[in-house]
């Protein structure tokens, strides 16, 4: 119940935020641009709109997750409102989880609004509704959950600027870990292979959530793949949040 109250509060707070509005505005602008850009192509107009829209939803979602995510805890510290909250009978894990869930709710509504706009544009210009791309949107949302969790984790022990860089770096690395696995398979040394494999499994594999191109080309997505990547994302989020709570519990507020 306390978690719920904090979540709702966070949701309202972020929704009123100017940053959030400007980001959504630019994301919508990109969706509109995708329609314009698609007039330049020959045939396959829908592919351009779909590609640009899905990427736009993801990229702006990541920016929102990171820049709003790191502010969740830090804003409370800056404005000293954290003293009021932790003096209430609220456990720190409840506070952190509430904040996280609040932002997840914001992201959910963001993704929903964007997807609705994107579907609308696509229907207006091509007269078809690519339902299979909704699976890509679903996994984009799971990816955003992972990125948000990492932003929260970094903000529990670091300054906002550094947290943002860490979270952005993790997002970039998360899309490249596949190379680590390839490297591990090629290397002859057992020690190096163990280290590379460890790093590969330790870091989030965000490519798992990337089925954008496959859905745009209407290729089949196995259901077990979809379920597995969702559970992977949720499990990963739980691990990160638990770690954040561990760190946050030890933190002193001056």
């Amino acid at each position: 119940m306390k978690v719920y109250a904090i979540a709702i509060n966070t949701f309202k707070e972020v929704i009123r935020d100017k940053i959030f509005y400007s980001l959504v505005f630019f994301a919508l602008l990109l969706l509109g641009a995708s329609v314009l850009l698609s007039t330049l192509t020959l045939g396959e107009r829908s592919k351009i709109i779909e590609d640009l829209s899905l990427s736009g939803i993801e990229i702006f979602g990541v920016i929102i997750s990171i820049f709003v995510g790191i502010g969740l805890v830090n804003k409370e510290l800056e404005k000293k409102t954290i003293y009021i909250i932790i003096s209430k009978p609220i456990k720190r894990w409840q506070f952190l989880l509430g904040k996280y869930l609040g932002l997840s709710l914001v992201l959910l509504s963001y993704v929903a609004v964007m997807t609705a706009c994107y579907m609308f544009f696509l229907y207006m210009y091509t007269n078809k509704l690519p339902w299979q791309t909704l699976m890509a949107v679903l996994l984009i949302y799971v990816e955003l959950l992972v990125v948000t969790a990492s932003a929260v984790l970094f903000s529990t022990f670091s300054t906002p600027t550094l947290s943002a860089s860490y979270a952005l770096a993790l997002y970039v690395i998360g899309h490249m870990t596949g190379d680590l696995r390839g490297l591990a398979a090629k290397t002859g040394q057992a020690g190096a292979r163990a280290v590379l494999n460890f790093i590969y499994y330790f870091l989030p594999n965000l490519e798992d959530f990337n089925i954008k191109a496959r859905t745009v080309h209407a290729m089949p997505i196995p259901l077990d793949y979809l379920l597995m990547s969702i559970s992977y994302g949720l499990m990963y989020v739980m691990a990160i949040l638990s770690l954040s709570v561990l760190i946050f519990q030890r933190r002193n507020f001056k």
Partner: protein
Amino acid sequence: MRTASIFLALFIILDGAIVYNVQKRMDALKSGASISQSLPYIPDGRYLKQVSLGQDSLLADLIWLRAIQVMGTRNITRNEAEWLYHAVSTATDLDPKFYYMTELGGIYLTSVANSHKLSIKLLKKGYENNPGRWEFPFFIGFNYFFYLKDFKQAAYYMGIGARLPGKPPYLPFLASRLYAQAGDPRYGLELTEAIYENTKNERVRQDLQRRMKELQVEINLDALQNEVNAYKNRFGRYPASVQELLAAGFIKAVPVDRLGGKYIINPKTGEVSNTKIARRLRIYRKGVIYPKGK
């Protein structure tokens, strides 16, 4: 508080184990898409250089590392060869002085991927960027000689390589030999003379001198062979000796052989040969390319 922390830490470990297993299963599901099969798209090097924010050299390394992974595959397809050419060519644009990469890419393309034209294209690019490196013209020449059987081009590029610093000592000899095989011993002689002028090592100069004499013999042999054929056209038979050619007015004088041998004509086949040089300057496909020359 403490027990809660321990509980949380245990949970993280447990959860991590689950994450690990899920990822492993997903990898198994995704398997089949190995690193070599997923050839990443690489934009044109000229544009990449502009957006690399000054990290062009590093970017070249990364592309090169990716290309090496593809090189590791045993059976390379035409598609992969073209991708490989594009990748190495792009990396060359990004880091033109990374000559080793370009060179190895060129060798790989021709010897493993059987894409000789692409290899030559890449090596020429490498040579443009590194005009001082003899390896590029050498391998271009090798491509022309060994795979495309274009001896003239081969000799031309070997000749370029033979004039560059750091070349292996056999390169000038190889180049002159190629000119002889291409039917242009005159070019070979010119080339050898040019290199002779620029060589200080006495031992090499002696070898070059001998090679120049051999090339002269080669030029004489070619000239005599032409006259023998003309003789056959007029008289319906081959001359038995060089003197016969002289008597019939086909040549003005018996050529002097500076190696001390004599020119003889086989009256049955009409083949002109030299007593001092058992075999003519030729490079045989089987056997050593390194000219024994002695």
